[in-house]
């Protein structure tokens, strides 16, 4: 069998080292803000952005991705695809140990993907539908047998999507209740030390890390500072070195970036390209009517929100697919700000003034203000709106239990509609309990079919055609109300070097970062 060998030629981890002529210096502590405090660090079961931020430095995926989304070896050193595109063989790195000293082997890979993540990660489950079997012929080889070629397969192995989890800890237990969730054990560059709830999460250098010479820094502290103004002050006083994108008030961004010694980058979000929208509950109440949902789109002054709340960072979202993601269709009709059209649609459907609940997203002040803006927009076209406030755990739960009318979210696109987009709209991805699947309850068999065909179609032109059809239909149906493609500047102290060097930014940045004394 002819095989295409990839990976082996670029088998060194710090893939941007050439850009930095200076030799990295060892030692030191980096203080990072984590906002909001994550509900858990168990990256395999919680998809919250901050769970991924902290957990991504404890756990690892099989690969890392550079800013052009090309895969690079990490726990897998090389991989091959068979000629028919249906068999993927991964060769694992030898000598890797878990933080508790047990060796990392192919059994962990099979368990993580086939058992644990298949059960707990709705997004991955969608992709695993194309995988017939995952087998481990020996300790350092894993073979994926696909039922048909699946274009986005090679982009599945980033730590947030497919973290490697220890089989010897989780096998045969109730995953959600496993005590290791409170003391995560991964293979990553940092080991979990302490989590003082409401105060900080302390990670320390993994002395047995499998990449020699890494990490450079000794300690990593993630500080929980619930107040946005205090986060800015903490950065100004030097207590905090890194403000991950989205962790300070947008109002403060221009001021902070002008400080001496402050560096800023919008890199490190290529893989995610965060897409913000309003969940609209398609099952019940006024939001179950398509005309009402279209009226919501017309009622929103998104340009105002972008300029006032986001300092003009970002872009108005036209539909379900982000403009930086593959297969985005620019010919989609645009829902402009048009209150009159919204009122006409409401009159046509005979909206009787039933109040709708608008659940705020507890991700800080910008989102709180955005909730107030949306409420005002809705009320001005005659939609009676009640704001519901909650905490992060309650928000996860209410969306997962479908106990909402309208609520905010932003989700990641993962570079390909089959990975980051279709999950929100496929009707077979409706499952109670998760706030990251088709939580709005959109059912359109035709869209299902287009999405399913597009995921496995060949070549790309065929995929693009199918995705265009799906996008036009979805934009017509408005299952959710798209807000913006977000851009989050990461602000950091310039003494921190080589911070963002992958497509997922701070989520796996600290293994290669170093401090210039």
């Amino acid at each position, binding site marked *: 069998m002819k095989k295409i060998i990839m990976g082996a030629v670029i088998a060194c981890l710090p893939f941007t080292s050439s850009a930095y002529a200076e030799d990295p210096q060892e030692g030191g502590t980096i203080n990072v803000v984590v906002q909001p405090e994550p509900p858990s660090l168990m990256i395999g079961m919680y998809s919250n952005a901050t769970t991924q931020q902290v957990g991504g430095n404890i756990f690892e995926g099989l690969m890392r991705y550079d800013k052009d989304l090309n895969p690079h070896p990490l726990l897998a050193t090389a991989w091959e695809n068979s000629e028919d595109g249906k068999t993927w063989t991964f060769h694992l790195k030898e000598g890797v140990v878990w933080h508790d000293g047990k060796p990392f082997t192919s059994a962990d890979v099979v368990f993580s993907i086939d058992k644990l993540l298949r059960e707990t990660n709705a997004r991955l489950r969608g992709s695993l539908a194309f995988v017939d079997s995952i087998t481990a012929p020996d300790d350092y080889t894993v073979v994926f047998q696909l039922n048909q070629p699946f274009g986005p397969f090679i982009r599945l192995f980033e730590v947030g999507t497919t973290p490697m989890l220890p089989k010897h800890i989780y096998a045969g237990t109730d995953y959600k209740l496993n005590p290791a969730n409170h003391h995560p054990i991964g293979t990553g560059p940092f080991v979990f030390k302490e989590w003082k709830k409401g105060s900080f999460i302390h990670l320390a250098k993994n002395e047995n890390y499998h990449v020699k010479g890494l990490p450079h820094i000794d300690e990593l502290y993630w500080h929980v500072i619930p107040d946005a103004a205090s986060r800015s002050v903490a950065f100004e006083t030097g207590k905090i070195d890194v403000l991950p994108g989205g962790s300070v008030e947008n109002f403060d961004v221009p001021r902070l970036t002008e400080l001496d010694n402050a560096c800023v980058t919008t890199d490190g979000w290529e893989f995610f390209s965060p897409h913000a929208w309003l969940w609209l509950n398609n099952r019940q109440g006024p939001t179950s009517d398509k005309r009402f949902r279209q009226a919501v789109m017309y009622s929103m002054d998104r340009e105002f929100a972008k300029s006032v709340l986001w300092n003009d960072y970002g872009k108005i979202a036209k539909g379900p697919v982000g403009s930086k993601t593959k297969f985005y269709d620019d010919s989609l009709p645009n829902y402009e700000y048009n209150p009159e059209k919204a009122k006409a649609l409401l009159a046509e459907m005979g909206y009787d003034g039933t109040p709708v609940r608008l659940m705020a997203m507890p991700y800080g002040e910008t989102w709180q203000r955005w909730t107030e*803006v949306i409420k*005002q927009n809705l009320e*001005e076209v005659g939609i009676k709106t009640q704001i519901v406030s909650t905490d992060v755990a309650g928000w996860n739960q209410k969306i997962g239990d479908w106990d909402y009318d309208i609520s905010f979210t932003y989700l990641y696109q993962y570079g390909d509609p089959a990975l980051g987009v279709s999950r929100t709209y496929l009707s077979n991805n409706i499952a109670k309990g998760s706030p990251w699947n088709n939580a709005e309850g959109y059912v359109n068999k035709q869209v299902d079919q287009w999405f399913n065909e597009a995921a496995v179609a060949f070549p790309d032109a065929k995929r693009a055609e199918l995705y265009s059809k799906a996008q036009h239909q979805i934009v017509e149906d408005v299952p959710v109300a798209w807000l913006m493609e977000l851009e989050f500047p990461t602000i950091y102290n310039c003494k921190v070097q080589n911070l963002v060097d992958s497509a997922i930014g701070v989520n796996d940045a600290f293994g290669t970062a170093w401090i210039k004394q």
Partner: protein
Amino acid sequence: MNVIKSLTQNKVAMVGFGILFMFVVIALFGPYLYDGSPWRMVQRPFLPPFQNSNYILGTDTLGRDVLAGLIYGARISLLVGLVSTTIALLIGIPLGAYAGYYGGWVDEVLMRFTEIFQTVPSFALAVVLVAIFEPSVYSITGAIAIVSWPPVARLVRGEFLSLRSQEYVLAAKLNGQTNRNIIMREILPNSLSPIIVLASLMVASAILLESSLSFLGLGDPEIMSWGYMIGAAKTVIRQAWWLSFIPGIAIAITVLSLNLLGEGLNEALNPKLSGKRES
């Protein structure tokens, strides 16, 4: 009447009364005279005060009219203050009256119960209550009432303890009046003056409590209040200090006016003090 005369002669108290009266008028009629919701985004954000004659106090982070916020906020502050104080009185007066009048084990039980509430820091308890019952104007009012009745009960009990052995009470007892009648008709009217003074101060502290809760983000998200305005402005205090300052002044003045009025009432209702003043 002596009390009113004495009160009107007290200039400080009248200043307090005047300011308070102004806020009550604003709260009652302001929303009708000043059209538009305080949530409406009317101008560019961060418009400083006294720059645009339509929006005399400027606009907040989203371009909402600060003056409209103040007017609507007056309504909620006073409403919460008055209603929660009334509820606190309705709980505290009967408890204190029974404890003081009957004494013995009734007193013991009721006072131990009161102490349970007194030992918990009132603001912490209010935060917990509001968080449990989800922030709304009802839960906030209820929480403030629940944390502020114990002082009323203690005060009323003390009054009843000292009054129950007075001759007119003993006479009423000999007369064969029911206990209920004695409590309601004989003792309570004679202990009203310190209760009124306390109540006026409780309204002030209730307004402060409501503002503190809103400041912490535990306010009713549907309602514009002064505490909310300060809480929402605190992140931008460097760029726009007036957004915190203006509602802060409103709270300070209202609370001050209630304190002045309470002091005046105290002097007017307390014969010993008012006598001293005249001499």
